[in-house]
């Protein structure tokens, strides 16, 4: 499993775009980059997953450069409800894989 490195914490004001970068230098060919969001007193929730280039859904965008050694989660126009811990993981597409969670990034949105 590829080790991931993220900033421990970030602050941002409401309405701004937030970009959280994750480093995964040892990502394997079969790995997908997957982001989870965790609110206090809840289990992690899947946000977005990608293999390369750009992926966008109703919640976020994920940018992955050609070498795949890093990725950036982009949250457009954040609100207070986006305050959470965000985890970046590299997950094999073989399935039934145990997940290794890093420290995550604690994002705090300021009114």
């Amino acid at each position, binding site marked *: 499993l590829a080790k991931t490195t993220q900033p421990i914490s970030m602050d941002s004001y409401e309405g701004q775009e937030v970009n959280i970068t994750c480093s995964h230098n040892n990502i394997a060919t079969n790995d997908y980059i997957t982001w989870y969001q965790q609110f206090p007193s809840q289990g992690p929730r899947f946000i977005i997953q990608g293999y390369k280039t750009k992926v966008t859904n109703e919640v976020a965008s994920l940018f992955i450069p050609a070498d795949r050694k890093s990725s950036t989660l982009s949250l457009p126009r954040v609100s207070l409800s986006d305050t959470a811990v965000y985890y970046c993981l590299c997950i094999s597409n073989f399935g039934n894989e145990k997940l290794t969670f890093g*420290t995550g990034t604690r994002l705090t949105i300021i009114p």
Partner: protein
Amino acid sequence: SAVISQKPSRDICQRGTSLTIQCQVDSQVTMMFWYRQQPGQSLTLIATANQGSEATYESGFVIDKFPISRPNLTFSTLTVSNMSPEDSSIYLCSVEYGIQNIQYFGAGTRLSVL
């Protein structure tokens, strides 16, 4: 997606007692995972439970302390045995579901041991 229900959502227990946490999924899944999350920390995998076989435990976790049952494809239990205050934590179950191999998590069980 898969919907996961965990019971109880929280409990306060006395030292030396045991608590069994239930995890119910709305779909049949091959593997279920149990995690522990200590206050302010990330998630740590306790064990992987495959229906019809013994659970596989991660380093630092043993079956005598955290026995797991997996009687069918939609249900699992984790027991925290002979509890001490150090077992105070959030315990979460998860399942892998769908073609993207995404894991879905329950809301967790917040355990406090006095």
